[in-house]
């Protein structure tokens, strides 16, 4: 990765002037948004000045996207206030936000493929040209060409979207915002789809827009980009604002520390003794897995887990951790390499085989993968055991025994639910997690893969989940903990492996590892 060339003006103009601006372009005060089971934004506040590139930095799940969806009128906040240029606004739909001059460039573009650039630009615009029944192409095309020249967004107004590269499509999205004379532009992870050169060009454009007094809100979890383009950085973690800092005062390391949050040192469990040395339970050797967007998600991963130990996988989201969990649990097929549980080699891409071998899996996506949202607790509780005797007899289900199992899990794992027939989606995140942990432990697993087991949970539930994981390990289960929360990793794990771009780039003893060291490896730094 390394340091990118800062494209900010050599004098650091933006940073200086924006801090002093009296009326912020955007001001969000104590904005809270809850979803069933998740507190996505918890009293988030931040402000961005006109003429500023303001970065929202945070890991996946930190609440960046929810925040921008509130700002663009897609969601309504449960609490809190939004002010634009000093005036309170209440958006009832995305249209209201557009009218107020807020445009957003989403990660996945909102373009009509068969239409031309000019047509896409004018689409949905209900002023002047956009208002008329006919699309006055020449006038719009001229304006689009002009804007493109002015901001370095070269793309022919008559090209059709499907003919354009991804980078060019992004330019069309920005042109759309410029054409509508947006005062505030939100870019959601804009560089995820770009080559480094395209990203550099984008930064120049964003700076040019800021020079003109527009506000650019730049959402990212990549440190080097944030330091390269932003004037100020607001760091979000777990749905809360951590701090707003001047980009010029910040280093990648200091931002990383804010992002992963080291001040809440939960402390390592004191009674954790020397490394347990049980039998090898899980063994991965040279595992390669194709990625969803081409390329390889796992590039020859080798990993050994012993019974009774907790091994944590640290890494910035999208570096193959998710694929690792899915591959071991059989949801994703590997293209090469072997996975062994005990002496048994797993069939690649066969979840049932993994379940039989004793692999329990707490997926990242609780509702939708780990649990079926509209089905009852009792049905969800039977996911792994419905094939065998107490729950089914021959082809039939023992519905009463299913309910009994659910009731016993509810009681034993303290799941707060009205009863076994409650649909899973009515449970809070913490209770979903307890239900799922209860179900997975019920099958007496040999290996437990827990992917982001505490993401979005409140403190009490986090403690419970941590307790379960420790208990599992002391009962001889090999636990693979995948987490982006470094405190959690350091509090729970015996060993930490760091993943970067689909490979394991380092392994540390949790007892001696530090957040700084992990953060450095996670960002692609060389192991020291």
């Amino acid at each position, binding site marked *: 990765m390394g340091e990118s060339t800062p494209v900010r003006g050599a004098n650091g103009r933006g940073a200086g002037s924006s801090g002093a601006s009296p009326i912020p372009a955007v001001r969000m005060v104590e904005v809270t948004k809850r979803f069933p089971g998740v507190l996505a934004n918890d009293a988030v506040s931040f402000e961005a000045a006109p003429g500023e590139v303001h970065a929202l930095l945070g890991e996946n799940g930190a609440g960046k996207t929810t925040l921008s969806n509130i700002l663009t009128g897609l969601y309504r906040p449960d609490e809190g206030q939004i002010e*634009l240029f000093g005036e309170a606004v209440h958006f009832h739909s995305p249209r*209201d936000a557009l*009218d*107020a001059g807020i445009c957003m460039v989403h990660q996945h573009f909102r373009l009509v493929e068969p239409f031309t650039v000019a047509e896409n630009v004018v689409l949905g615009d209900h002023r002047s040209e956009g208002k008329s029944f006919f699309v006055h192409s020449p006038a719009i095309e001229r304006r689009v060409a002009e804007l493109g020249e002015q901001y370095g967004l070269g793309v022919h107004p008559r090209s059709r979207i499907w003919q354009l590269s991804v980078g060019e499509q992004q330019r069309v999205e920005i042109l759309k915002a410029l054409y509508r004379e947006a005062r505030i532009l939100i870019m959601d992870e804009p560089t995820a789809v770009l080559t480094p050169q395209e990203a550099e060009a984008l930064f120049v454009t964003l700076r040019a827009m800021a020079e003109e007094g527009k506000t650019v809100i730049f959402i990212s979890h990549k440190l080097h980009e944030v330091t390269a383009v932003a004037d100020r950085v607001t760091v979000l973690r777990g749905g809360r604002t951590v701090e707003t800092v001047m980009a010029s005062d910040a280093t990648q390391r200091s931002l990383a520390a804010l992002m992963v949050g080291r001040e809440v040192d939960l402390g390592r469990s004191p009674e954790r003794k020397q490394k347990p040395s049980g039998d090898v339970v899980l063994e991965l050797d040279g595992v390669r897995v194709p990625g969803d967007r081409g390329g390889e998600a796992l590039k020859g991963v080798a990993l050994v887990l012993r019974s009774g130990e907790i091994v944590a996988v640290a890494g910035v989201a999208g570096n193959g951790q998710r694929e690792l969990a899915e591959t071991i*649990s059989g949801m994703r097929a590997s293209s090469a390499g072997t996975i062994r549980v005990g002496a048994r080699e797993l069939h690649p891409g066969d979840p049932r085989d993994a*379940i039989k071998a004793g692999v329990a899996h707490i997926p990242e*996506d609780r509702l939708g993968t780990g649990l079926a949202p509209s089905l009852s607790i009792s*049905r969800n509780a039977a996911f*792994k055991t419905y094939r065998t005797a107490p729950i089914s007899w021959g*082809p039939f289900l023992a519905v009463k025994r299913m309910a009994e199992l659910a009731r016993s899990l509810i009681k034993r794992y303290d799941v707060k639910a009205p009863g076994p027939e409650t649909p899973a989606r009515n449970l809070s995140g913490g209770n979903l997690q307890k239900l799922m942990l209860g179900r997975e432990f019920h099958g007496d697993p040999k290996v437990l893969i827990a992917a982001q087991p505490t993401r979005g949970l409140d403190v009490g539930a986090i403690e419970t989940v941590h307790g379960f994981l420790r208990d599992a390990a002391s009962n001889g289960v090999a636990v693979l903990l995948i987490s982006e929360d470094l405190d959690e990793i350091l509090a729970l794990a015996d060993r930490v492996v760091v993943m970067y771009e689909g490979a394991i780039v380092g392994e540390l003893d949790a007892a001696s590892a530090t957040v700084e060291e992990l953060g450095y490896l996670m960002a692609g730094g060389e192991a020291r």
Partner: protein
Amino acid sequence: MIRLERRLDQPKWLSVAVPVGSLIAAFAIMAVILAVTGHAPGHTYRQMLEAGFTGNGAFSATLLSATPILFTGLAAAAAFRMQLFNIGAEGQLYLGAVGASWIALKLGDGDAGSTPLYVLAMCVAAGVMGALWALIPGVLRAFANTNEIITSLMLNYVAGFLITYLIFDSSSYWRDVSTLQAQSFPQGKPMPAGAEWPTFGSSVVVPLGFLIGLGVAASLWMLYSRTRFGFEVSVIADSPRAARYAGMRTRRKILAVMAISGGIAGIGGASQIGDFTHTLDPTGLQGAAFGYTGIVVAALARYNPFAVCLVAVLLGGLQNAGFTLQGPDFPSGLVGVMQGIILFCALGGELLIRYRVTISRRARARADTGSAAEPAR
């Protein structure tokens, strides 16, 4: 300004209240149309009630009309429950009729004799044919991920051409070529006497097909709510990813559910042959469009097999009343309009189950002016 908001949870009572409300709304809208076209709505509805349900022999006729749509309704419900949109009950029913009439003709008049044997053979042949026909879109969906709505729908036309060909454009096994009249006016061979399905009851005559349909409904309920198979289907329907996570074999389920759905529609075809036409009648089958009505039945019943039985009788009565009502001053088109409105209201009602309608006055202006009067939500 009217807005739709997604419901976070769907109360149980809604799944009863909404379909009933949809029906009431449909009748209310129809009343306006009747009034506009110069028919007194009250009088017409009374007539319909009598012709469809309360009149002498009316209920027997209604059960006759209800039988085929009971089968196609169950076929649709069986597939829709797994979010597998088999629109092909129409064609699967044709193929079922082809299979049933073939086996009945094969068994012939001879000593085979006993009706139960005919019924069993016809149902099996029809079920197999319907299932095979439904497996074409099923296999395509399972292995090539094609859209089963399109493929099953298109196969309906293929099936239609096939039965037309069997009777009109060829001297196939099914075509009656025994007399000169039959040669110039193509028609199917009459079924042997043993292949006529019995009826039950005297004041209300219940065709055997209807009873078989009730049995199928009960088995379907059993299958979907009390077996491992049904459990897997419900998980796949709710979240295919969760099903994969739990190690369920989605492809096999797609094939099985399509086969079950097609098989049920096929048995509907056997019932057509055994209960009513006693010959393969392409024109009548294609004109009736049982398969498409079955989709309406399943939608109104919210895919519940028992509710399908009720709705089938209700719509059967409506159809039957339509036949009685239609005449010089009551165009048959009005009956079609009625059915269309019911479907429209039923599908509109679905929206109300998933979304809540909220009405608020002029919301837009506030965003522009930033009025502080609006309480934060």
